[in-house]
């Protein structure tokens, strides 16, 4: 069975550019993508993830709407390993530019700041995580880095 990557944004986040391009990039690289799109309600994330049982989840977050993001992560962790959830985007809110990345990382999920990574890097990261699911020691590679 081919491995499925679930993609989307949460809550009131309607930033669709990265979402559209990432879907195309993942698709072009041969990965099977299920794109929920943007502004996906918490209940939809949970119901689709429960039904599809994705191998990876990629969530974009650009507008600082962090409460629903936290909620979705918390619920997804109950049904899949936390490190197979990747969060990308601008994880700050407010004029002081405080980053929320450490809080999200503390939940055990991966964080990819999308200003700093190319689609190729995201795909490579996804491939490593998927390979790990098939017996590859991803953690060892990460630690070595």
């Amino acid at each position, binding site marked *: 069975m081919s491995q499925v990557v679930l993609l989307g944004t949460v809550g009131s986040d*309607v930033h669709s550019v990265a*979402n559209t391009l990432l879907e195309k990039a993942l698709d072009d690289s041969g990965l099977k993508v299920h794109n929920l799109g943007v502004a996906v309600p918490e209940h939809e994330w949970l119901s689709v993830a429960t039904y599809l049982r994705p191998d990876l989840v990629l969530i974009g977050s650009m507008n600082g709407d962090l409460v629903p993001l936290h909620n979705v992560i918390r619920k997804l962790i109950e049904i899949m390993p936390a490190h197979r959830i990747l969060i990308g985007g601008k994880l700050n809110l407010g004029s002081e530019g405080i980053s929320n990345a450490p809080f999200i990382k503390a939940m055990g999920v991966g964080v990819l700041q999308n200003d700093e990574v190319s689609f190729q890097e995201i795909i490579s990261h996804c491939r490593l995580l998927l390979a790990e699911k098939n017996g590859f020691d991803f953690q060892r590679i990460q630690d070595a880095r």
Partner: protein
Amino acid sequence: MVLISKEFKMQDSSTRYATGKTLIQPRGGRTTEFRQKMLWDALIEAGCDLLPLTIDSKTRLGQIEFASSAYENSKISGLESLNGFPLLSVEISSARELISSAKLPVSLRHGTPYAYDLISRAIDLGVSEIEGGPLSYSLPYSRDSDLVKVINSWKESEICCRNASELVIRETFGILTACLVPPVIAIMVNVLECAFIDTFSSGIPMASFGATGSPYQDVATIQAFREIYPWFRERMGLTESTTLIAYHHWMGPFPKDRKLAEEIISTGTYLARITKSNKVVTKTIDEALGVPTDKTNANGVRLTKAVLSGDHDALNVFIDEGKSQEETEVLIHECKLQLEKLLDKTPNVSQMLLDSVQSGLIDPPFAPHRSCIGKLKALRAIDGSVRVTSDQPGILSEAFIKYEASFLGRKKFWKYVSSDEVKLDLQYPFVSKNDESK
């Protein structure tokens, strides 16, 4: 339902436009009245002409309970937990005090598909500039909104603006997704939404365009709109009216390099000036670092003011008049052709708004809305202009698609373009601009 009160006199912003000056309008919304007032004070000190009231994304999508709770928490803790001002959560008397204390006209900027509640509240409070429209505030800002219901909500909103105690400036949001929006789409959205506003006589229509990164194309787009709209208004049987133009600084991704960011803002301001736009909507040089602070926002106003009043020759902006003229003619021809098709089907502007989306004509790149069929793809040409290609024949004329393809080279075959290349196209085209000036 909020009743329209005529007791509170609006600050008449319409008279400000009579001077012919390009007015400066920053953006910005804070979580509490106190913080909003602080922002306004900073912007006034910097020399802006209009004050922003940008609404938070929770209120925009009708999640009022969440917005209210975040607002209350912010008032207690002093920490802002929303990305804009929650107008529907603030007590009316307090919101009224805020708006009536404003020393300049206030402009509502919100991105709400079902806009009636927000607009009626804003009009009631004395807000005199209202941004948005049925398509420009739904296609880029929502996924599942029902376009028929959205249009009905905007009809009620237009009536509300018409009943305001003084003339309202009704600005569209032709910038749409702000990423590679082809001029042909921007012009048609502006034409249809201005006609919608004129149909309801809700105020002075103001079409809005955003910097695409191609100076000659931006000049051509505004020029083309100025020629197309009076023609369309006449074809619709609408009475002659003044139509204003707003020009938005670049709304795509900003570079972290502050010098380059400053160049983007200065170029945008210069273009607002030479296109005789009535208003320039500003950005800041720290845009890449996150939500701007009051200080950086005020600095954006200062920079804009300096360019508007200073020596523009210091700027490296070159506009190829021949290319701009050709572009204007092509855009006028294609837009009139497509608008004629809409007019052939119905004389009703609301129906035209729906038809334009269903036929795939209004199909902004990257728009999240389910109704957008996604057959038009936009890419940046070598000369920095934004060009459109289509997976489906018949949406735009064959001659126009061929014209656009002549700028695109191999990129006209969208399927062979990688996501990283499109990501590059989304950046401000500094290199192309230099090429253009050679």
